[in-house]
């Protein structure tokens, strides 16, 4: 049945390159999450705003992020913006695309979490003399993060998987980019992509387990 001889040795020689790629992947995912979370908090609050001027753009962002493919968003960040003369390098385009996507999804998660926090929490905080931002930062946000923690972890895994789309905009230093680079030179597609899959799997697992540990340390209430 197999008209093909597996050449694992050849693929295994590339492990160090793949490892470097994995670090870049992790770096993009982390950066996009940090920025995505910041933006998502703003979007979530904006989505609860009564002012159309604030509500509308936030809603457009969230809807576009959630209703178009991530690949489309990344392609748009590179070539779409490129046609306006805004040149994002593959790294930045990938980062922007994933951040845009993260922010859109997380905004909805956070909005749900915000709704789950009773109004009296803010009222209590304000009654103690806290300013609106203080009340939000010290009282509402920590609770919001706890409620949203699990979905946020899932989004982090998504972000890692999404980095693989960078190859479509010329990204060649992340895990998928390195993999593809090795692939087109040797045509040993199966072996090299299997290794990449293993790498992704372990990164995803490491993040999930890491998140569990953090949750366990942080949310002791």
């Amino acid at each position, binding site marked *: *049945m197999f*008209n093909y001889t597996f050449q694992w040795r050849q693929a295994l020689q590339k492990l160090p390159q793949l490892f470097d790629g994995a670090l870049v992947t992790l770096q993009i995912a982390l950066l996009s999450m940090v920025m995505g979370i910041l933006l998502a908090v703003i979007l979530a609050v904006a989505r609860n705003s009564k002012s159309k001027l604030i509500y509308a753009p936030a809603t457009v962002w969230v809807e576009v992020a959630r*209703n*178009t493919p991530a*690949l489309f968003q990344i392609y748009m960040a590179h070539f779409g913006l490129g046609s306006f003369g805004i040149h994002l390098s593959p790294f930045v385009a990938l980062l922007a695309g994933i951040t845009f996507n993260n922010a859109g999804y997380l905004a909805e998660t956070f909005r749900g979490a915000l709704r789950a926090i009773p109004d009296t929490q803010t009222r209590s905080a304000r009654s103690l003399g806290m300013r609106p931002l203080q009340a939000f930062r010290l009282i509402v946000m920590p609770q919001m993060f706890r409620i949203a923690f699990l979905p946020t972890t899932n989004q982090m895994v998504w972000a890692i998987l999404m980095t693989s789309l960078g190859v479509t905009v010329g990204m060649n230093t992340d895990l*998928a980019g390195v993999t593809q680079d090795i692939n087109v030179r040797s045509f040993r597609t*199966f072996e090299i992509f299997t290794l990449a*899959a293993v790498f*992704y799997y372990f990164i995803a*697992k490491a993040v999930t387990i890491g998140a569990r540990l953090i949750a366990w340390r942080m949310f002791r209430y």
Partner: protein
Amino acid sequence: MFDTGLNLNDLMFLAKGAGMTLAVTAFAVTGGTLMGLFFGVLRAHISTWAALPIIFVLDIFRSVPLLIQLVLANAFQAIAGLNMPPFATSCVVLALYTSAYCTEIVRGAIDAVPMVTRRAARSLGLSWGQDMTQIVFPMALRVALPSWIGLTLGVLKDSSLVLWLGIIELLRASQILVTRLQEPMFILMVTGVIYFALSFPIARLGSQLEKRWREND
């Protein structure tokens, strides 16, 4: 209104791409849901230990980028001489990918059916199969539907990755047009609108159904 080289012919080309996107999605979601139902029911009825192999395998589909899965599957079927057209490969991979998520949805929904309700059904003399079809599935469906709709929408979007195997779906069709017409922003916007137009009705249908059912409670 717009000064564009995009003509009716090209719009048809995009529509054909959208049709391909829908076809892939339909196959993937149908297959994935059937598999998800099977594994989900199995998961709900055997112990976590016994289910460990299933959990592990399905987890892989959720922890490896779809792009990698597609390339790997394509390479594998090539090596194994299965002679599958890219369309079939794409559908199989997407279906497995869907089933990985669907299994969790199904299991969660079945677990959400109170034990006492199932016992009541069995006490009336309903067989296990009757219990599943008459009581558990209808009740679980309500719990599962919102997540399932979300999953379907996700697959619709993720199906764009099958362009990697040379399938001309919506996004690939738009790239071809971009190559020919050199109007990336405009064509991509049109593509985005089409994606929106595809997913919006599904989302609406879901919330409509949810609302209808909620009226009964």
